[in-house]
């Protein structure tokens, strides 16, 4: 029927017009306009992206409520242009993520970019994109690969536009070893069983941990490498039980790790789980494992994600976040993305300009008191972690106790002592 075809064609034309219309209504932010436009590529599909988004929006609201950023004698508000970078979605190629960043730079014409791709693969590729377009970038959500600062150090002139304010897995590994040393002195443990997700990052990181732990006097009595998304850990747990290990070192990000915890509790494996357990960071993990995750120790990467007295701003941030979003901060990204806005504000005010060269110089001299401690950057534009809140930022290791995540490390921020499950005999 001719009518049917005409109808179909009209639907089609409407669809196309809609697409073009939607695309055409992009904000064309002028550089000389009032607000300072900060582009924020955020992986909305993942928890880390949501954390980062919440942190950044909270910070922007606070800054704007206090008047904004002082530039050239005028108070200018910050305008966040959040775009879904899609980099944690499983079916999405890195080219899409880079295209999102290009959209911010080329079409929305932002002044700076903060947030950034969270996945390491995308983050590394993005370094080249920012170098190509000479746009300032503050990586503040995840992207912990040590390859990042290696790459920057190899060509500091090319990659000078990028800063990483979130963290590096190198430091977290050091914290892990220091924590293990603490366990050694406190409980007299000496055997470790390692269980990791099979991804390049986990593999490399665990190799470093094993090497350094062995140097510290630990005996690695077993190792398990399971495919990401594995649903059955019984083989590894049985091996762990039989090996006599007292520490179960885990490095895994798949949500299926909750199965590992449940099986660990059911099998009453006498080893304390410590490590980087993505699923265990979530406040809802207790409920999800029916409380079986008790006693597991996990890193939340940034002080401020759970109540702590390390810095005056830590509790302030925790309460503000909880009030704004109705849920406690989850983990990686909440604090660093929040702080990123303040770091940028501080740098813009000190440089008194939005020109890349001036901002880079100002950022390199950052010495800002913040939630995690004091923010400084090293020569590879990497934020400096340490144990002293007066000249570095602090990490955060928590143990699940009584339904809550309680900070137990670094000592200066600890709110409680490490407890052992009832079936582990000292």
């Amino acid at each position, binding site marked *: 029927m001719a009518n049917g075809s005409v109808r179909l064609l009209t639907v089609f034309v409407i669809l196309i017009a809609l697409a073009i219309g939607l695309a055409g209504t992009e904000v064309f932010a002028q550089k000389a306009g009032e607000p300072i436009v900060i582009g924020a590529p955020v992986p909305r599909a993942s928890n880390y992206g949501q954390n980062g988004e919440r942190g950044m929006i909270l910070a922007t609201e606070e800054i704007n409520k206090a008047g904004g950023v002082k530039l050239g004698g005028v108070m200018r508000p910050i305008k966040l242009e959040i775009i879904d970078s899609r980099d944690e979605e499983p*079916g999405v190629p890195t080219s899409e993520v880079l295209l999102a960043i290009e959209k911010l730079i080329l079409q929305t014409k932002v002044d700076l970019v903060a947030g950034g791709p969270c996945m390491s693969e995308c983050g590394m590729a993005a370094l080249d994109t920012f170098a190509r377009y000479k746009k300032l970038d503050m990586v503040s959500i995840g992207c912990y690969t040590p390859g990042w600062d290696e790459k920057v150090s190899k060509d500091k002139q090319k990659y000078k536009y990028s800063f990483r304010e979130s963290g590096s897995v190198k430091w977290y590994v050091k914290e892990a070893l220091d924590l293990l040393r603490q366990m050694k002195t406190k409980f007299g443990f000496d055997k470790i069983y390692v269980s990791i997700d099979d991804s390049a990052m986990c593999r490399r990181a665990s190799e470093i941990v094993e090497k350094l732990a062995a140097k510290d006097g630990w005996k690695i009595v077993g190792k398990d490498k399971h495919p990401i998304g594995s649903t059955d850990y019984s083989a590894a747990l049985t091996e762990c039980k039989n090996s006599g290990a007292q520490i179960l070192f885990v490095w895994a990000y798949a949500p299926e790790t909750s199965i590992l915890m449940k099986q660990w509790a059911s099998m009453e494996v006498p080893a304390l789980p410590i490590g980087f357990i993505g699923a265990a960071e979530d406040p809802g993990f207790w409920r999800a494992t029916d409380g079986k995750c008790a006693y597991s120790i996990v890193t939340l990467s940034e002080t401020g994600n759970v109540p702590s007295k390390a810095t005056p701003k830590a509790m302030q941030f925790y309460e503000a976040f909880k009030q704004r979003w109705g849920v406690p901060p989850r983990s990686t990204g909440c604090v660093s993305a929040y702080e990123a806005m303040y770091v940028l504000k501080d740098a813009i005010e000190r440089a008194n300009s939005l020109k890349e060269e001036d901002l880079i110089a100002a950022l390199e001299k950052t010495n800002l008191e913040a939630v995690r401690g004091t923010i400084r950057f090293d020569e590879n534009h990497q934020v400096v972690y340490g144990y002293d809140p007066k000249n570095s930022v602090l990490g955060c290791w928590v143990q699940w106790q009584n339904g809550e995540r309680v900070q137990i490390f670094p000592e200066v921020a600890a709110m409680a002592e490490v407890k052992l499950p009832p079936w582990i005999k000292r």
Partner: protein
Amino acid sequence: MAAQDVRKKRLDRSINVRSTGLYALNSYREMAYLLAPRLLLIVGLLALPLFLDHYWQRVFCTAGVFAILALSFDFLAEYVGLVCLGGALFIGFGGYGAGLLNSEFGLPPWASIPLAAVIGACVSTVVIMPCLRLRGIYFAIITFMLPLFARNVIVALGLFGSTEGITGLDTLPNIWVEQYVILIGVLIVLFALRRFVSEDVGLIMMGIKDNDQAVLAAGISIFRYRVLAVFIAALIGCFAGAYLSHLYGWLGLSLFAMDFSILPIAATVMGGMGTLVGPVIGALMLSPLSEALRGMGQLRVVLYCFILLIFILYKPEGLMNFLERKYHQFERVEKV
């Protein structure tokens, strides 16, 4: 006395009849009738980058990659009878090939892209070969599984940068080169495939699709022709993949992303299966649409599949077939 019945009558346009065969050279009008759509396509595509701003030019480049993938899907599905649910496999092999040639051996893009296309095609064909002796459904299932397996193998063996990929590859000199390389690639592939399917080899492949027992009875080895067809489709797919890795200067596991498998299928069904032009137009439409819907996350995939489903169920001929029909024929309602 029965009530008046009406029926729709479809007739070739007179100009269509007049321009068949050699008679097309009769006058300029007939030649224009035949050339106009093709010229419109070529000139339109070549001129399009001049009207786009920098951002949309980048989108155009990725749309070109999808267009080539859609072409390979359409070729396999409609001209050989093999439904390939894993376009990502070709992109992955091509992308990894080009990236590795560039980073390990230092080959510049203009050498690594063609080389990677050929090598990637060989590897893809070898991997797919075991299932080519069987019915088409095995092909569909295997190609669906292969990209996911390829990812697992790469991660398991820790090869090629594993989950982090390799970045910092050479990119093409500037945006204009990037666009025109892919554009001319699309046009060449399109017209080459159209020519190919009218050759004897192409006819045999269509015969295999329609009735494989008959072709077998003619003493022709179905296996060999299927291998050839897969090789050709893999060649163009790997070319697209190699180009993509040099577009952004990166290679990684996400080259095997499912997005590369789904969008070409949706583009082909929407654009018109069987007409090789349709998939290209479909890809050029769906790609920007996907960008525009960026804010909606996974909704874009749901949307593609929904469009796909509606088209398959109610308008399986697709856009190009519909337009072609309108161009060559006219309809008229007449009383019986």
